[in-house]
């Protein structure tokens, strides 16, 4: 794949052809050794662990047949699961965008005792295994739980409901917005704000017209990451979701259920749809990040 491509096969090629040749090379010359070994291992390991198993999903989806695929994806139960997954993920990402922005703002701009500890603590949902988060949140929001007690008294069914699913997704998505917005807020030049203030803008106007446009790409990136993570989340949700088909069954759980019933075709079809969505999200994230870099350069 990385062989030199010769620019001309003629024997009469002038000596300078080696210079022209460089342009057509897939790999440019480097004085450092080890390209063959490291690239070879990288491609081998990547193919073995990621590419071949992952592409198997699409081959399997095709081999089960288009009719099967269509039937599995458009069944009411699948549609309900996809609707629930998308709805709760979107809602939790929005809530995380709002509170994440406030947390990042407070952590960057204000001083209070224990700030460094709190800052370190934001990563906790990344470090905590999802199953532990799942059972802890379920205990907290069930009818006898510390929080659930009060919510049930108010008539809110906080566990085994879309409400509970959203709570779990907020938990696991919490660090994304904070961690993407924080560095951009830190690097914000105070000169721009000073200029706006000297031109008579008030604090709210400065936030809306100067700060928000600058941090918008980071905020959107963090929100999209939280959304993308929430869509596929399993461990922290299964315990609190209740898992009633058509009502509180998220898409990853439906894949699991179909698999346990040896319905490989349906499981693969739903997984295929989810994978396509993930890839689209990945593409959106790349575009967002490119936009963010562009914004920083201005």
């Amino acid at each position, binding site marked *: 794949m990385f062989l030199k491509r010769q620019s001309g096969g003629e024997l009469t090629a002038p000596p300078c052809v080696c210079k022209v040749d460089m342009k057509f090379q*897939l790999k*440019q010359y*480097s004085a*450092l*050794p*080890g*390209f063959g070994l*490291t*690239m070879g*291992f*990288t491609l081998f*390991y*990547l193919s073995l*662990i*990621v590419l071949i*198993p*992952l592409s198997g*999903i699409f081959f*399997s989806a095709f081999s089960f047949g288009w009719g099967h695929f269509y039937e599995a994806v458009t069944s009411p139960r699948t549609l309900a699961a996809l609707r629930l997954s998308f709805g709760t993920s979107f809602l939790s990402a929005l809530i995380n965008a709002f*509170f994440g922005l*406030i*947390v990042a703002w*407070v952590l960057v701009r*204000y001083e209070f005792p224990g700030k460094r500890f*709190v800052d370190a*603590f934001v990563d*906790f949902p*990344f*470090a*905590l*295994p*999802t*199953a*532990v988060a799942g*059972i*802890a*949140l379920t*205990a907290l929001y069930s009818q006898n739980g*510390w*929080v659930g007690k009060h919510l049930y008294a108010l008539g809110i069914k906080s566990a085994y409901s879309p409400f509970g699913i959203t709570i779990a997704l907020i*938990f696991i998505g919490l660090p994304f917005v904070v961690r993407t917005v924080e560095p951009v807020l*830190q*690097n914000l030049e105070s000169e721009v*704000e*000073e200029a706006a*203030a000297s031109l008579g803008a008030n*604090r709210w106007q400065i936030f809306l017209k100067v700060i928000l446009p600058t941090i918008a790409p980071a905020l959107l990136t963090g929100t999209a990451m939280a959304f993308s993570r929430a869509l*596929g*989340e*399993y*461990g922290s949700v299964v315990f609190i979701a209740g898992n009633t088909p058509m009502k509180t069954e998220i898409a*990853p759980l439906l*894949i*699991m259920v179909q*698999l346990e019933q040896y319905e*490989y075709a349906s499981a*693969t079809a739903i997984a295929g749809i989810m*994978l396509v969505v*993930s890839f689209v999200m*990945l593409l959106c994230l790349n575009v967002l990040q490119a936009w963010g870099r562009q914004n920083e350069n201005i």
Partner: protein
Amino acid sequence: MAGSVGGKLGTAGRTVHRPFLSEPLWIRVLLTTVALGFLAFFLALPIATVLAQALKKGFSFYLRALSDKDAWSAIRLTLLVAGVSVPLNLLFGVASSWAITKFDFWGKKFLITLIDLPFSVSPVISGLIFVLLFGAQGRLGEWLGDHNIHIIFSIPGIILATIFVTFPFIARELIPLMQAQGNEEEYAAVTLGANGWQTFWRVTLPNIKWGLLYGVILCNARAMGEFGAVSVVSGHIRGLTNTIPLHVEILYNEYNFTAAFAVASILMLLAFVTLVLKHWVEWRAAKDIALSEPGAETL
């Protein structure tokens, strides 16, 4: 991450409070309260719940739950799985970041995206792909069955799924770090007659050691805590194919809540150790950067 810490250090001296660049006191108090309240609600409460539930029936019950035979075999399996998958991903992380950052070739950005891919795949799908490949009805299922090789519902499957979900951690930590450091030192070493291994061990590795350790810590935390992917391929055989998170699930589903939370508290401890180590590494990396910069004595 290390970079952002460096940024913080650099700007610390510049922060001067100007009244027109800050919000009124009541807004500052309100925002701080909202932020801390949100974090307390979503972070502190779950932690308190795990501890309270784990110690509900007293400390001796807690210890008994932890010394259970199945709990120990789950701990052993988790250590084995992390012990295999982290070094393999470390090897891959170092090799791929060397190939990507030391050379220029066509399709580099695409390769980086491919390496990141497992992060955007749902854990359940991460397990499913190996079932489709190695399961009894999978592509290689028949052949594996004929040769009496067990991958799914067995330890190799658990290791494969864990390697898949933790695949990008170390590589994605090393690639930006090595890109930022450039290749000048390596060129100098090669010019002075060092071979590839010498250049790597004596020049590159000392430069990337904190980033490497950072990646290993994150990779290990995820490898030990992974639930969804492992749950698909494990088959939940008590004492045989149960990792700690799966053991927590089984205990919980058997309404053995106190024991479930007791075992969960080990995983929570792992999360705390991970956070502490992560910040220690960030602090060390920032210290190294500060020391290597001219005029560091004034800091």
